[in-house]
């Protein structure tokens, strides 16, 4: 795990009133900012809201969108909804995991990608789909398209405009 330097979380926390109802919104905000929930931050949240750390931890581990370990630069959500399932999503997922040398959903050793499965993102008409970084939805996936999809995000660091013109829409969508 790389050494993650913890930026100052106070300004984020200060935006919220000290009310229990804000626990999940704060965790979501932290998750979005740091891509995971660092232990120190959970302690701070517990203190701020006066909610026992055990309960903060209980909430953080109950909901699917939270992660207690750092996630990769790009998060790929492979949809495993029913429509995607019957149209071949499990094979697409397997291929992606094989290509990234992952035994199961998780983060690659270089922290470039995190692959996770998601229960339907509501694009069932375009199944099977995957969404990258919570914004770019890739429709009608096949095993053959997996390599290209990964490459686009891998290449991004060196060539930001690498997306093909006909695919650029997904990057903006």
């Amino acid at each position: 795990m790389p050494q993650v330097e913890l930026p100052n979380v106070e300004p984020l926390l200060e935006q919220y009133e000290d009310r229990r109802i804000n626990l999940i919104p704060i965790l979501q905000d932290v998750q979005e900012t740091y891509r995971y929930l660092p232990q120190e931050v959970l302690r701070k949240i517990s203190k701020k809201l006066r909610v026992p750390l055990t309960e903060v931890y209980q909430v953080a581990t109950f909901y699917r969108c939270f992660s207690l370990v750092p996630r990769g630069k790009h998060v790929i959500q492979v949809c495993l909804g029913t429509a995607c399932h019957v149209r071949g999503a499990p094979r697409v997922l397997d291929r992606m995991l094989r290509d990234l040398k992952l035994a199961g959903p998780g983060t690659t050793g270089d922290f470039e990608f995190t692959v996770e499965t998601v229960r339907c993102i509501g694009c069932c008409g375009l199944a099977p789909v995957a969404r990258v970084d919570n914004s770019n939805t890739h429709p009608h996936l096949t095993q053959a398209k997996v390599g290209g999809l990964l490459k686009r995000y891998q290449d991004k660091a060196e060539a930001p405009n690498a997306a093909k013109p006909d695919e650029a829409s997904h990057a903006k969508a």
Partner: protein
Amino acid sequence: MQKLKSPSEVNEMRLCLEAFETTRPCISVCAGSGCKASGAQNVLDSLHRELERRGLEGAIDIKSTGCHGFCEKGPVMIVWPEKVFYNGVSQSDAKDIVNSVTNGHKPVEKLLYKDPTTGQRVLHEHDVPFYARQQRILFGNNGKIDPKDIRDYIKVGGYSALARVLTNFSREQVVNSVKRAGLRGRGGAGFPTGTKWEALRKSKVRPRYIICNADEGDPGAFMDRSLLEGNPHSVIEGLIIGAYALEASEAYVYVRAEYPLAVEHLVVAINQAEKAGLLGDNILSSGLNFRIHLVEGAGAFVCGEETALIASIEGRVGEPHPRPPYPVQKGLWGKPTVINNVKTWASVPVIVNKGADWYASIGTERSKGTMVFSLVGKINNTGLVEVPMGITLRQMIYDIGGGIPKGKQLKAIQIGGPSGGCIPASMIDLPIDYEALTQAGSMMGSGGMVVMDEDTCMVDVARYFMEFLEEESCGKCFPCREGTQRLREILVRVSQGKGEESDLGLLDDAGWMIKETSLCGLGQTAPNPVLSTLRYFRDEYEAHIREKRCPAKVCRELIVYEIDPAICDGCHACVRVCTTEAVLGEKNKSHTIDSAKCIKCGACLEVCQPKAVLVH
């Protein structure tokens, strides 16, 4: 927009907007999540560029709207006022589209919908078979309005129901209208909405809360998302009318975080409604004070259950509690609370405007109004469909859905998400209403309708749902937590060819036990996918157990890949995609598959053009 100060000002505003309605052509592009994934944003950008290039910005309008429903053919658009419907549009078509508008609306032939049976091009949306059979009372405005502009909603009659209620309706009259209309909860269980509202009104405890359940967790369902994305004000208007009738001053809308666009549009809509004086203090000078808060879910299927959803809003883990007490007795923070689904709230303004009797005239004896289904899976026309209750599955699958792709046979229709069940093709003339579906071992659910063809293995489907439910079971009650695990284990065993004859009885017994003894709706309906497939597709289970054979050729442990040397042209495509070097053979000579190396991923089958890859 200025602040509206009375109900009559809403109507004046509408008249004013109508008066300013120009005859300018308008290209309204679907920018829902589906069409965006198909490239709608690019289409919008290139249309804007084209108008700019030709100096036509003031002459032609471009509107970015919510979901039109026909996701399969996206990106789709309508050109007003001719109402020309284009599908499968790409950014390179912008020039042709603008040209056609400036040249007297001669339609762009290649972008018109092509009827697959007749080969004829269809000019208007309402003549496309997918739309022709629908009755879109909730979704009809999606193609007309920009969800980020409240004026568009007001122009099509939005907030006029609220104005009417605040002028002419007593609180009891609103509740009675909803009751008389026969509106039932659109979230799944179908509880009569008017009865729920009446129960809340009996409580003397204050404050009262109302909640909009937009935690659309059923995989394969996306109508709530589309309504919030495309017409958020219709839901807000329903909530305000509800707040008036139920004397609630605060509402919570609980939306899945997986729907970023819906969240974005809802935030904009709430802000605009506040600025317009439709939310806040003394709404339209009626004395009604009402605010809407938005809560984002955090990815837990069980939070669609009302008591779990309430726990989640309160900042706790989403664990349900036994009912009674029902939320109308003790809900959010222990106060009386009404929870209704997105479509239920959006139906309220329609009932007020068109009348309870009109609404009750649509549908069947006990299921009134329209229902929105997401028609997905192995079907030609995937998308969102709004139809009157009582329509048959045949009409849905063949008239609207255009049948099964590649000439395959229909096997089953899975309705109602993980809580629902699979209905076999033999029951295709079943009318769709709450009672008929429940009797058939399925349920209406939130309206997800996944079509399955001969290539879908029903044991695999049951296993899929059980994996889902095992993971999403909150773990509070024993029957659901342990039961879903055991069912999944048995199903995995069967799908691997390791099942035993006694497993069938075990699945049945355990299924009924979980159904009878679980705490909440999740557990009580969890065995449905297993029980319904056992009921209608027992032969498939038996084939897996007795013959160690998967009839649909899906279950990996029971299939073998082979290449037919007579068909293989040696194109090498399969060799290139195989990651385990299992496909052997030189180029231009027929290939073979080394079954010891083959991991049965099916990549070769996917790319083989001459269809030489066989599965046994």
